[in-house]
């Protein structure tokens, strides 16, 4: 395990030397994205909610909420509750 971590660290070091460090813009974008993801997941932890409900609770744009919840559903952190009209409801798993 130690060897593995050493090998990975060495590769990352070489990559940084070759291509320069990861840009601040990318890191900031990622941080912001993670915080949005957490907000959305927290909003559906207790009770199932629709996208407009999550949007008004988190202050995030509906489009952004849809994007985040799509990722959370795809990667198994939330589920959607089927509906025939209106809006689906989402809940944390």
């Amino acid at each position: 395990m130690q060897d593995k971590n050493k090998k990975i660290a060495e590769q990352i070091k070489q990559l940084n030397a070759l291509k320069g460090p990861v840009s601040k813009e990318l890191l900031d974008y990622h941080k912001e994205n993670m915080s949005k993801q957490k907000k959305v997941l927290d909003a559906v932890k207790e009770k199932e909610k629709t996208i407009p409900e999550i949007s008004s609770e988190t202050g995030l744009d509906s489009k952004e909420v849809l994007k985040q919840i799509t990722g959370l559903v795809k990667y198994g952190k939330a589920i959607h509750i089927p509906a025939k009209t209106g809006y689906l409801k989402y809940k944390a798993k």
Partner: protein
Amino acid sequence: MSENKEFVCDSLIIGSGIAGMQAALDIGDAGYNVIMVEKSPSIGGKMISLSKVFPTLDCASCITTPKMAASSHHPRVKAFTYSEVEKIEKTNEGFEAEIIKKPRFVIESECISCKKCEESCPVHLEDEFEFGLGVKKAISIPFTNAIPQLPVLDESKCIRCAACARVCPKDCIDYLQKPEKIKIKAKTIILATGYEITPMTAKKEYGGGRLINVISSLQAERLLAPHGPYGKVLRPSDGKIPDSIAYVQCAGSRDESIGIPYCSRVCCMYAVKQAMLLSGSLPLSEITIYYMDIRAFGKGYEQFYNQARAMGINFVKAKVAKITEDQEHNVILRIDKQEEGSVPMEVKHDMVVLSQGLLPSNKNFFGLNIEKNEYDFVASSKPDFSPALTSTEGVFTAGTACGPKDIPDTIMEAGSAAMEAVNYLKSVKI
């Protein structure tokens, strides 16, 4: 760039969509060795992303996946995925192609497709397989039934947290992987490079790429697919199940002003198909198709169209002048019905699909001296009797590389290209 590797084959096929795969299987079955080169990380082309096919409404994936499996397991077919053809030169022995195999940053021979790297990656990105509607990770297998089942790391979005490398049970993440140069010597070439759809921004007045609920026909395919991005048809602005959906026909064809005066042949039928699927999946929704005229040209297509009418799809003969949106992102169409005495009017829909046309995917043919038609598709030298022949001996074409066509015609033409290539290989001693 790593060192050159050299391969020799009888037939080199550029593109591994349904045309490329069919041609590869036919040539392989005839006893010749084939190499397919595909620019995407998986074989399957556009067809693997479609929901169903017209007019039978068979599942597109159920037709494509067996072909993908057959061509990847065929003893005489080899595929280079995530690889771009740089150039092809005609030589005394046939053709010589230079290929660049892009790095996946994964050691392909070691990877066991366990997806642990994808699960551990914290970076969420727009998924190009879902045409921007879904989400993927910075390292991911392109889609569920991709072949090969190998992940690709998006180097430009990776934050180098090394989570993927730490969880990989086979230690096959290689951040320092370089592009590989490959040389392929072949006796024949088949151009099966396929199509691109007209850009969403081609008709500025339709608001494509600007109005969030105006989507492309391929995005609509993904919404309708069983493993689509949202698991249900939802509109992108707020996830609402749309009550009213409109199709705007000829949104990227038959228009001199955008430089695409030809008819793309398939748009009428894919719109009818999608409308029927939508009415099945959203039985309470109203679906309208605004059209100039419906071109139901193939076997069973007229019945298919009549069936759609009988199912309650609204067909409105009208020209759409402009598309805008209101504050809730509902889409407003300014239409002019093609009826006597009608006046321009505005209609509101929850979501609009633009029926875009087909453009050639490749226009320079990798330096080969190939004649093009006036719209940059490969020109067939004998269009009536041997559509697969091109202006260069030994080079054949199949599918939408030589013009817009539907899937049955594409498969038939791929068979024809394979037959021409086999005859050429038999007749020419190189």
